[in-house]
């Protein structure tokens, strides 16, 4: 009689060891626990139980998220309706696998792999609305209106997939077999065009499956895309006083403050990218339109006000937006400091526009008019590359460096290089004009094979 409970215990613990060995994954020494203590649909319970075994990383991420806290499960985002084009067809087979926990047909629901801003809008409509106005959401349209690499077909489709579209986003498509076209996926680009017509991907900044507000408040959320020779915002930030203070004090930052309460000087010492461009600050409300508070388009060839940016004119007034940004500055800086800073930035923009860009552009136009440069392609003549780098690389570094107060980028990587680029460009251009000699056109420009057709999904009319 007394041995019975021991045997039962032994049996039970053996069963438990056996059971947990199935669920345990080698790089997760202790499995994240989840007891279904709140009301969720049985189908969602099936998702969770199966995925904590099959993809423990995804499960653990979600379990630590605020979504899990609020009882928001896989289904709330991934569920689709029968007949939708984006149903993950391969997923249905798992409901017939008896070796999987909950692998039963009664739990079968149609789901989609890709979750879009439209899906997020079911609970976060205002954030989605703001985001849909931003240049982030509409970046595919913008680059197709401006960019010579795409419009002149100067790089290959795979160079675009692995380069351009990784950040800017792909046009998601369904292939002949009914699955997501592998040339368009995986992708979390900010301007991704989704099958439901919505634009972008919230997971660019709130990576799945944590969807953390804290993460998006950190500069590391932005630096996957905002770096490098053409727009080194993260390097500029690192060099700025804001960046150096962030690195010195980030351990003290309260990144998890509730939405709308993240406070300069209390929750953080120096602002991050989000701190100035997105977060609420003083009387300024939070926005998911990251381009809202801009007063100059420092990435454009000729610096213009956002409302005058032709490919995508902002529905803002630059003076109102500058007022908002000044309010953000005012959380830590005095008015004279802000005035003097903006005087320097505006002067840098003016000098770039008037002294460097406009004369260089006039010279380029003259060369085209005189037939000394050939207009059919771009980048196949040296002067075109020089002109491109003048505004697209050094010219941006100079302006952005001045804006975000990184002296090395404003000068050595910026105006210093613009100066010599300009001088060389003018010298070579004058030489062509004086001699009447046509520029050398590259005969073997490599891998210029990309599709030059604007995607009809982006330009429906």
């Amino acid at each position, binding site marked *: 009689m007394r041995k019975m409970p021991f045997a039962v215990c032994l049996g039970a613990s053996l069963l438990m060891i056996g059971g947990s060995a199935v669920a345990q994954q080698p790089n997760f020494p202790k499995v994240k626990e989840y007891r279904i203590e709140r009301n969720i649909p049985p189908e969602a319970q099936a998702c969770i139980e199966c995925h904590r075994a099959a993809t423990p990383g995804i499960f653990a991420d979600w379990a630590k998220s605020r979504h899990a806290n609020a009882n928001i499960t896989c289904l709330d985002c991934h569920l689709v309706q029968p007949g939708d084009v984006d149903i993950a067809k391969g997923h249905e087979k798992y409901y017939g696998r008896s070796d999987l926990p909950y692998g039963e047909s009664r739990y079968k629901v149609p789901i989609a792999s890709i979750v879009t801003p439209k899906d997020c809008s079911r609970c976060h409509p205002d954030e989605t609305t703001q985001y*849909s106005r931003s240049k982030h959401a509409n970046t595919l349209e913008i680059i197709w209106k401006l960019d010579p690499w795409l419009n002149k077909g100067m790089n290959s489709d795979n160079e675009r997939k692995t380069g351009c579209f990784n950040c800017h986003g792909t046009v998601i498509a369904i292939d002949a077999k009914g699955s997501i076209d592998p040339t368009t996926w995986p992708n979390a680009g900010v301007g991704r065009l989704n099958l439901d017509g919505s634009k972008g991907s919230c997971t660019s900044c709130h990576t799945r499956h944590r969807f953390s507000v804290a993460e998006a408040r950190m500069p590391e959320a932005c630096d996957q895309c905002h770096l490098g020779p053409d727009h080194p915002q993260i390097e500029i930030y690192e060099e700025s006083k804001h960046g150096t203070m962030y690195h010195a004090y980030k351990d003290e930052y309260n990144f998890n403050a509730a939405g709308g309460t993240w406070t300069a000087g209390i929750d953080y010492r120096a602002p991050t990218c989000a701190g100035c461009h997105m977060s609420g600050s003083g009387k300024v409300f939070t926005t998911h339109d990251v381009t809202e508070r801009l007063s100059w388009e420092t990435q454009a060839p000729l610096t213009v006000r956002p409302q005058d940016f032709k490919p995508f004119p902002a529905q803002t007034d630059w003076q109102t937006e500058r007022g908002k940004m000044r309010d953000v500055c005012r959380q830590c800086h005095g008015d004279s400091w802000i005035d003097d800073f903006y005087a320097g930035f505006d002067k840098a923009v003016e000098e770039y526009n008037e002294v460097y860009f406009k004369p260089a552009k006039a010279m380029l136009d003259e060369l085209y008019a005189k037939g000394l440069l050939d207009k059919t392609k771009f980048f196949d003549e040296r002067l075109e590359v020089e002109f491109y780098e003048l505004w697209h690389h050094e010219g941006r570094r100079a302006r952005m460096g001045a804006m975000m107060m990184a002296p090395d980028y404003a000068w050595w990587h910026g105006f210093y290089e613009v100066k010599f680029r300009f001088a060389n460009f003018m010298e070579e251009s004058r030489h062509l004009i004086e001699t009447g000699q046509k520029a050398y056109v590259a005969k073997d420009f490599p891998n210029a094979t990309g599709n030059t057709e604007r995607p009809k999904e982006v330009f429906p009319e």
Partner: protein
Amino acid sequence: MKRHIIAAVLVGAGILVAFPLFSMTYYTMVRTSTPEFCASCHEIKPAVMAWRASTHTNNAVGVVVDCMDCHLPAPHRTFDFFFSKTYHGAKDVVKHFLIDEYDREKNRQAAYASFTNEECQKCHRSLLTMPHNRGAMRAHRSVLYARAGYEKKCIDCHYDLVHDDKAQVMFRQYRKTPYQAKGLRVERLEMQRPQPAKGV
């Protein structure tokens, strides 16, 4: 004495005229307020068929939401209600003879444009107190207590719900997949989008 007789005659005559008029008006209102009456126009018939198969007709609590419950102003706006009903009735008859083909999609969009949340909220009033069903509590709050500039309509997220053509009758209680709103309509997001300058 004479004045009393005149008054009595006038009141009597008033009742004699007004009562039949009032009852006939009321009778007409009742007769013209049924889905069957709406379906007597061939243009509207598909919409009524789809409605009959929808969860607004078939649900565990037995509630049936009639055409007018959604498509006319809430009855507490009494004047608007009668005016709209008469106006639409007259307009539909005229249009029936004037137009060649009824554009269902165009009229769907026109209906969305004319809806206000009041119509939906005649029935759907308790949106924030569903402890077993917390989904979209944030979104519902943002509709009920909208920030200036962020006002939304119920139908911005809940669309193609009743009048989408179905292969079979939908029963709310037998839904295979839990109901979820579709999220903000892309057209609505497009409205936020700046119009590109010409010639770019």
